[in-house]
């Protein structure tokens, strides 16, 4: 055991944790928007819209995250026309490519979680709202959304943790996140166990925080 290495690598890994947290929070925010959008499409009665949303979630849940990142980072740059559009400013950065891939991936899982949450809402609650003369917009915002949030919290908590682990793949497209820096230290010092313990503890600590945060929210939104 090389305790010195563990101590000297800790600050480097903690700085890298900031990158991981940034990646995680941005992809979760975008993912939630995408997920909500596709969950609403899934509940649509139009069969084409419905099938489109199902196809999206099927493809993104059925392929590895690594392939998705590689298609976006290496693949899209290949299209001549794409490189001349303003989107290229975003897509040439590995940072944004990773976030887009993560957001699309977590969006697919989130849409499934939200869809099933919306479907578990008892029709009686909506009927009650309607019979009180509440407009359907208010019913959606004030009845469906809060119940769906409560219903989807446990599953969404798992998704956050999975996504946090997923951000480690950013290291494959040259980003120096927690895993990227850990790998760099391992490959220069050849002390994998020490670095694994430090980096793993940071990840475990984040898992612990997320887990407890979700537990707290579950209690808060209990009804």
């Amino acid at each position: 055991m090389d305790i010195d290495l563990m101590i000297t690598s800790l600050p480097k890994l903690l700085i890298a944790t900031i990158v991981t947290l940034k990646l995680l929070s941005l992809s979760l925010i975008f993912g939630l928007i995408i997920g909500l959008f596709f969950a609403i499409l899934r509940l649509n009665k139009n069969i084409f819209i419905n099938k489109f949303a199902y196809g999206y979630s099927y493809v993104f849940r059925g392929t590895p995250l690594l392939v998705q990142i590689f298609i976006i980072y290496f693949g899209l740059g290949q299209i001549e026309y794409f490189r001349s559009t303003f989107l290229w400013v975003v897509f040439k950065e590995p940072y944004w490519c990773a976030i887009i891939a993560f957001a699309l991936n977590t969006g697919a899982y989130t849409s499934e979680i939200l869809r099933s949450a919306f479907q578990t809402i008892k029709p009686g609650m909506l009927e009650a709202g309607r019979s009180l003369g509440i407009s359907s917009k208010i019913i959606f915002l004030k009845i469906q959304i809060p119940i769906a949030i409560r219903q989807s919290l446990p599953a969404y908590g798992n998704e956050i943790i999975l996504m946090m682990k997923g951000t480690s793949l950013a290291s494959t497209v040259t980003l120096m996140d927690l895993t990227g820096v850990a790998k760099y230290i391992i490959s220069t010092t050849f002390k994998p166990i020490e670095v694994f313990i430090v980096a793993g503890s940071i990840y475990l600590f984040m898992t612990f925080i997320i887990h407890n945060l979700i537990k707290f929210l579950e209690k808060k939104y209990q009804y």
Partner: protein
Amino acid sequence: MELLAFGKTGWGDELLIATLMTIAVSITAMLIGFLFALIFTPLKLSKNKFLNLIGNSYTTVIRGVPELLVIYLLFFGGSGAVMFVASMFGYNEYIEINAFITGSVAIGIISGAYSTEVFRGAIQSIDKGQFEASQVLGLKKFVYFFRVILPQMLRLAIPNLSNIWQITLKDTSLISVTGLVEIMRQSYIAAGSTRDPLFFYSFAALLYLLLTYLSMKLINRLEIKYSRGF
């Protein structure tokens, strides 16, 4: 399309072999995972506090740490660990472990943690009466586990195990970082030498979709088979 031709001109045969490699690694990893689950499920269910702690730390650590980090640990530390064990038996030569074994063990450790949780849940949800009835009938421990508990456990566990299979299948793409030539690695090589990453990575995505689709079909049949009578 000529990029996918078989033989020397295209990448068809290479990708086919790579797909078989992905399947082989996934199955090996899944089986190694079952082995780990077989060891750690009893620990998690044990009444002994210390054994319990070992079981819980395994599932908590592995499920809370990124897969890639576990793979790096085994990739860089695997041969060192094996050499250390070998040196205790007096063997001091350099030992190199091939990428297939490292990869399957790494993914196996990960899928094992999830399998352990599934088996624990399945055993705990079997009615207590079933255990008592087998004891009353005087069944031998071996018989009652394989004839009474296991069939009921499988029915409860198969839907969750199918999820784990899907996760394992997708996780094997991460082994490409160690250089094992599976779908992802082969696409990387092909994309590099043809300068056509979009095509090859999209094709890789298609192959994974095909694998997940086919395995779902197969697992659904198993599910029907094991839920007969319910």
